[in-house]
């Protein structure tokens, strides 16, 4: 599903060049729940962005869902993300002026679905995350945990193969964090999604299949998580 070969990425910060990824090679199979862990600045978010088609490597090959991402233009990458990738962010990133349903429907506006079908699918996605009855609430009327569930519904509504999550539990209390991890686990188990998650959260180990650790842009040998 996801193949990275010898991928490097360097950022410039002022006069300094910072090597965020250093010859990283990584394969992620379909239907797995994978955690990327490591200290701040280790390159895990850069790796996630490259997998999701938000960033490009300086060198190396990236093939996701059968497509070579570095060869694509900006607009082709946008279309790739719309079709293949769902996003979950640390701070939920819901659009405040839209209701939960309006937020979940957003990715469907990039499809050819009619209004009624969009609405139906958005409600289905909200039902999967257990928030159907909150569909007409605005984000400021929802708790943090509920907002993250809406964000997960938005990530899966267009049925992408891959869901990327950047610190999805970083802004949640313990109870909600576990619920979100369980929900992401269920996306793999029940719906066959490949979930790639950047996290600092030690509780994640109990839910993911594999943990990849990064340090200074270098990938350590994969660590099979407790449940694998």
């Amino acid at each position: 599903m996801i193949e990275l070969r010898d991928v490097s990425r360097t950022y410039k910060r002022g006069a300094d060049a910072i090597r965020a990824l250093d010859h990283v090679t990584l394969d992620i199979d379909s239907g797995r729940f994978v955690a990327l862990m490591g200290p701040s600045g280790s390159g895990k978010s850069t790796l996630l962005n490259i997998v999701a088609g938000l960033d490009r490597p300086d060198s190396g090959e990236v093939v996701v869902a059968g497509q070579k991402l570095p060869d694509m233009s900006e607009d082709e990458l946008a279309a790739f993300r719309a079709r293949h990738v769902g996003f979950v962010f640390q701070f939920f990133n819901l659009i405040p002026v839209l209701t939960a349903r309006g937020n979940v429907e957003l990715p469907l506006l990039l499809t050819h679905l009619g209004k009624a079908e969009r609405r139906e699918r958005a409600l289905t996605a909200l039902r999967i995350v257990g928030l159907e009855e909150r569909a007409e609430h605005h984000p400021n009327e929802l708790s943090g945990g509920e907002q993250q569930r809406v964000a997960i519904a938005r990530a899966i509504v267009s049925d992408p193969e891959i869901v990327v999550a950047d610190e999805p539990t970083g802004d949640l209390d313990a109870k909600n964090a576990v619920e979100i991890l369980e929900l992401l686990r269920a996306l793999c188990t029940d719906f066959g999604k490949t979930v790639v998650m950047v996290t600092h959260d030690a509780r994640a180990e109990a839910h993911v299949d594999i943990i990849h650790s990064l340090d200074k842009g270098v990938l350590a040998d994969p660590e099979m998580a407790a449940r694998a």
Partner: protein
Amino acid sequence: MLPLRYALGNLIARRTRTALTVGVIALVVLAISLFSGLVSSLRHTLVSTGSADTLVVLRKGSTNDGSSAVPLEAVKALRYFEGVARDSSDQPLASPELVVQPFFRTRQGGRENVLVRGVEPMALQVHRGITIVAGRMFEASRGEAIIGKSVADRYVGAELGSELVFGRSKWKVVGIFESGGSSLESETWVDARELAADSKRPVPYSGLRLRVAAGTDPDALARRIGDDPRWALDAMPETEYYDKQAESASIFYVIAIGLAVLTGIGATFGATNTLYAAVQARRAEIGTLRAIGFSRFSILTSFLIESLALALVGFLIGSVLAVGLGHLVSFLLGGIAFGASTFTTNVVELRVGPFDLAASLVLALSVGIAGGFFPALRAARLRPIEALRRG
């Protein structure tokens, strides 16, 4: 494409900033509509006075009635020129006229030059569209006058049955006339011979109006009069004559355009500022939308729609205020006095019409597009990962 409610919802969510920007645009629309309305009303007043098949005969070199004199022999001869129309009793439709510009006292205690036109009864047939709406036509040699609608009530004695004081005499107002909003409504008409005697003019007529007979080319008749070696006269269609008078309004158009550009630039800065702030505040949101797969074009359009919505609401508020204020001014003041190029006073009714509103709409939309474009471009150009980065 992003839904319309996303763009509009954001405007509602940031109420104060939206209200301030809409307020600025509304003020610009108000100012420009009113000014443009005033200029078009002035032009309408002057231009609608003329008719293409009536010739104005003046002394060569004169630009208006006030500075002209036409000899009595010329008046007598020109009446019977071939091509001059006749009425049902075979009288030539020719109106010799004397124009003087005395001061009238306004009710507010000021003084204004008013055009007093000495005419013969035939004038009512030669000038098109004159209707006596109250009272009757004056009778010769009885010190009577009729006054235009705009004169009535503006000056001391300017009402039916009262006496106007100008020149060396008192004139009893026996009628009030309308002429479809033209500048004739700012005039007072009396008997030509009486006026000549009162003003002690050696030549009784300053000009002559001739109605051209059907089938006669007005320009050809005008050329024949101009080429006649006996008198040094010029003739031109009335429309052309009043077009020249209306040139004084053109400078106001230049001022209106200048004002529109300056206030428009001010409002554009306001709109730009609002939207730059919106882009800054919504970086993460824009990053999210780009990550989800929305194209740069979708982001650009959505911000432009926000900007155009600001402009449209500003236009709606401004134009309603302009039309309302226009009516209020007309109701309270009865019109606005303009000095014409003849130094007499034209009273213009302030009307904000479709043209003025269309001009304001174009201005408001330009402000919307110009003010929104660069912020929208900045939003569209944000790279998703940079936009998503916090702090």
